[in-house]
């Protein structure tokens, strides 16, 4: 029998976190600060809308691009929060999570050999999805000193004549960094000069702390026509398991993404779509409350890390912190493994997110303050033992 597997697929590096995850799940009494999803349950009224949809027998396919009512609600929500107006008829469609939208965006725009720039450290899916679509991934190594923001110089230096698109992901997983309006505007001249497409993954946009609200690059001048905005319900509305997201952009690109979606997926889950309509129409207060709660934890945790002597820039988005552990003379994986073994505390080694993550660890604060307190206590003991 011959080998049936695709060369391309075999060459994709498996997620580096697997080994660590196996270790963490087999160790007794572990507190994990390693999750990437909210600790809140989906707000009750949203769950109810899903349950009602099931009871009413809404169990059939929806149109490929999603329920018309949902698309309208998404556009209305987007206008409310980013000031950008999209046409629900042809500039938006509903996907199986933000994950599918990223994958489709890349598959829709990449010709073999096209270079796609993304920031490193990053969410683990960008690189493999670029490779699966026959693109060439070009990571830009971001710096702690720049608060893990992308600078114009860094962007300019990464561009070649093969560069097609830039993936921006802010607020960021794993660093918790954000890009303000000024930060984004600084990139505009370069993006326009090189005629780049921007794919912006804004899944954490509702979780922005600090003075300024989230700015979407799509709202800046001349950007709407060259930006694909990806967002979803997982983080803002605590609907990770419902698998629902959306993409918005120029109708020529969206229609091609819908084409692939239609053949590969048919439509996003119907129950989730009905629940999402309720979320968009009546969920703003819930999002506010969850965001406030995350903010409290963020301040608490950041203060504790400072007191411990762990160097960390103050993150202003998502629910992650990315402290610098280089002072301890260990690799991220060594640090995380030792911490797990000695204090039964799990954090994610930064290099799981790319080369620039080496020397850092990702701590999630999607946990109650009392759980964070216990985790902090253990971390404190560990740090003290290293000094």
């Amino acid at each position, binding site marked *: 029998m011959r080998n049936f597997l695709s060369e391309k697929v075999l060459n994709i590096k498996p997620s580096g976190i697997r080994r660590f995850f196996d270790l963490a799940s087999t160790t007794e009494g572990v507190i994990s600060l*390693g999750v990437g999803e909210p*600790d809140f349950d989906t707000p009750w009224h949203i769950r109810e809308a899903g349950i009602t949809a099931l009871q009413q027998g809404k169990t059939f396919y929806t149109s490929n691009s999603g329920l018309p009512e949902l698309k309208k609600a998404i556009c209305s929500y987007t206008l409310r929060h980013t000031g950008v107006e999209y046409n629900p008829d042809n500039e938006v469609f509903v996907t199986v999570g933000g994950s599918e939208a990223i994958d489709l965006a890349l598959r829709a725009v990449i010709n073999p050999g096209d270079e796609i720039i993304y920031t490193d450290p990053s969410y683990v899916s960008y690189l493999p999805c670029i490779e699966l679509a026959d693109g060439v991934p070009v990571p830009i190594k971001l710096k702690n000193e720049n608060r893990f923001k992308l600078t114009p110089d860094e962007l300019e230096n990464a561009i070649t004549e093969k560069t097609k698109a830039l993936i921006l992901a802010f607020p960021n997983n794993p660093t918790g960094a954000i890009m303000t309006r000024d930060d984004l505007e600084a990139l505009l001249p370069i993006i326009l000069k090189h005629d780049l497409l921007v794919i912006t993954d804004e899944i954490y946009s509702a979780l922005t702390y600090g003075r300024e609200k989230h700015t979407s690059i799509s709202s800046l001048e001349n950007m709407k026509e060259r930006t694909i905005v990806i967002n979803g319900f997982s983080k803002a509305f605590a609907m990770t398991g419902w698998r629902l997201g959306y993409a918005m952009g120029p109708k020529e690109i969206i229609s091609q993404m819908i084409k692939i979606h239609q053949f590969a997926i048919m439509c996003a889950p119907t129950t989730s779509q009905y629940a999402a309509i309720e979320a968009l129409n009546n969920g703003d207060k819930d999002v506010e409350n969850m965001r406030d709660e995350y903010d409290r934890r963020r301040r608490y945790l950041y203060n504790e890390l400072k007191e411990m002597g762990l160097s960390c820039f103050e993150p202003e988005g998502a629910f992650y912190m990315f402290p610098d552990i280089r002072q301890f003379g260990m690799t991220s994986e060594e640090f995380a493994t030792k911490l797990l073994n000695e204090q039964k505390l799990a954090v994610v080694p930064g290099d799981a997110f790319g080369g620039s993550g080496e020397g850092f660890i990702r701590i999630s604060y999607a946990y109650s303050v009392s759980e964070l307190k216990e985790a902090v206590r253990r971390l404190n003991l560990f740090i003290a033992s290293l000094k």
Partner: protein
Amino acid sequence: MEKSLELKLLDILSSNSRLTPEELSVMLGVDENEIRQTVDRLEKEKVICGYNTLIDWDKVHDDDVTAMVELRVTPQGGEGYDKLAEKISSFPQVDTLYLMSGAYDFLVTVRGRSIKEVSLFVSGKLAQIDEVQSTTTHFTLSKYKELGVLFKSKKTDERMLVSL
């Protein structure tokens, strides 16, 4: 302190009264002294009425009994319900006292060491009050949730331990 911040402070304290002023000041981004002053004021104004500890007494002794007693009353001498409520509240066995709409007037939560003890209190003390017309006693069989805290079904974190 501005109203919305005060509300947030009360919200946090209502579910965790053990947070120190320092922790509260970090979480809310407010000066520690302002936290102390605000809490002091709220205590004086009786907005904050107490800082109790929620204990599952069933785990401490076998013989802890709670009952909810419905009282039907006719307040005497034009004094209304308040004077009567004061009288009933003064009993240490009375844990909570509410004036209710509907088929009865007061709902009293009584705690004691046995069914007999609680029954004797209801018949011997509560029913003996002039204004009390009748009592109906319901004994608590199981406590699932109190003051927003789940007693029995411990909510476990079902998320995957590590997810990227």
